[in-house]
């Protein structure tokens, strides 16, 4: 436990003493703010247009469907690109910088290293996502979005982001080159995004498998406000699988 904290804390510090954390956080919130501003503006215009029509029912329009849901979806795409950039260093940099030799000649288990690094990468992502809570916060002041729906959507986005972190750490453990690490995890994540495309034409079994494999489909369910244990189990399994693969990757590198 002490080793996990030591490793995680060092990684977190190293991100925050360099400009990395600030650039990533600023960029993420800036993009989020742009999405939010535009979606809210569009919602406003549509509402004004319809409410000008006599006898038109506008009760079907709500902030959750018009602002929060698209905002979360857009953020999920940004995360898909940003997370590999924040995780590419985690193992690759230690490997190329020679500090791997320090880690693996210290009385520290590979599991502790893997979990410590995973927690450090997760911490940054947690901060990124929490900063965007300001947008639903603004909505609750000036409007009345359904809080449960917001919470479920945010939980989905958070789980998705942690799953991305697990993939990013895995590819970082495979190589000493950070660009290769970032590129490979981007490819894996994009493939996961589109893995359900052939589902339309596939047979019933394959279709079910493909849809179930797609991380984004599980996120979509949660973003719609459906909190299903199956989705949570999916993300937990996904993350555990990639942590295990990371462990294997780190171990196997020493045997070569």
């Amino acid at each position, binding site marked *: 436990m002490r*080793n996990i904290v030591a490793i995680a804390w*060092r990684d977190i510090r190293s991100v925050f*003493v360099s400009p990395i954390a600030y650039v990533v956080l600023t960029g993420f919130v800036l993009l989020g703010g742009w999405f939010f501003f535009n979606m809210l503006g569009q919602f406003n215009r549509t509402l004004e247009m319809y409410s000008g029509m006599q006898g038109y029912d506008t009760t079907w329009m709500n902030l959750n469907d018009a602002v929060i849901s698209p905002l979360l979806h857009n953020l999920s795409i940004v995360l898909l690109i940003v997370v590999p950039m924040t995780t590419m260093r985690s193992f690759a940099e230690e490997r190329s*910088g*020679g500090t791997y030799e*320090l*880690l693996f*000649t210290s*009385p*520290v288990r590979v599991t502790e290293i893997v979990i410590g690094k995973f927690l450090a990468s997760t911490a940054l992502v947690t901060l990124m996502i929490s900063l965007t809570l300001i947008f639903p916060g603004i909505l609750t002041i000036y409007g009345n979005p359904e809080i449960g729906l917001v919470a479920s959507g945010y939980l989905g986005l958070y789980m998705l982001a942690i799953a991305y972190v697990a993939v990013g750490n895995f590819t970082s453990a495979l190589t000493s080159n950070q660009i290769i690490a970032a590129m490979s995890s981007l490819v894996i994540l994009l493939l996961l995004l589109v893995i359900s495309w052939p589902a339309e034409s596939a047979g019933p079994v394959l279709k079910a498998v493909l849809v179930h494999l797609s991380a984004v489909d599980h996120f979509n369910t949660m973003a719609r406000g459906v909190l299903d244990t199956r989705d949570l189990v999916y993300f937990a399994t996904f993350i555990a699988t990639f942590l295990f693969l990371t462990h294997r990757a780190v171990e196997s590198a020493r045997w070569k």
Partner: protein
Amino acid sequence: MIEVKSLTKAYGSLAAVKDISFSVATGEACGFLGPNGAGKTTTMRVITGYMPATSGTVAVDGFDVFEQSFEVRRRIGYLPESPPLYLEMRVIKYLEHVARLKGVSRSAIGDARDRVIAACGLDDVATRLCGHLSKGYRQRVGLAQALIHDPAVLVLDEPTIGLDPAQIIEIRELIRGLATERTVVLSTHILPEVAEICQKVVIINAGRIVLESDIASLTADGSLEDEYLKSVSGEQPSLTDDERDAKDKKDKKDAPNA
């Protein structure tokens, strides 16, 4: 203290060390000599538990490096060929981090840090970033991290490589001081370094041990350099006495620290 038995380490089909055996007694300083690519670093990486052996065993203080890896790691301080520094960390913070990793108890970390900072002469740079240090200071911080948990065994991979002559003398003095109370394995290709610091020498060439001997008996037979060249090339040095004298003088001039 260190017992290497028929150790073989292969990278794929390439065997970096083949069936080597040697031992280092407690409190002894052993110089590990050999040309580049002879297998020095590989051997040290196996001794420190960084990578497992393909076959053969290594025991440190009676513990097998593979089976009882953590017991061995607690007893070994290791300075790899390039010091394992986190360049964005301050020296103090870095040493505290290493102390935590090495399992130094929370209350003892401060003392351990101050002890190695004093021992390695790091007072002036303690609050600077590792990445801003000169090569000599980086090497010292590397030594400091190897010493932080007060290990009984020190494994140093080419500790003076790439340093200027004044730095070489400093680091060498430092190591000599450390070697009085610890078991040391030191790899180098600077011959006088071994003669100055070590009681024992192991010469390795192309993955095999070609000589294992006490420095004392070796220097009685002839110069270490002759033995080295003989072992590495597998034949007698062909220099005449006059040529050798001339070469010795030249070497002394080239290496002011010799």
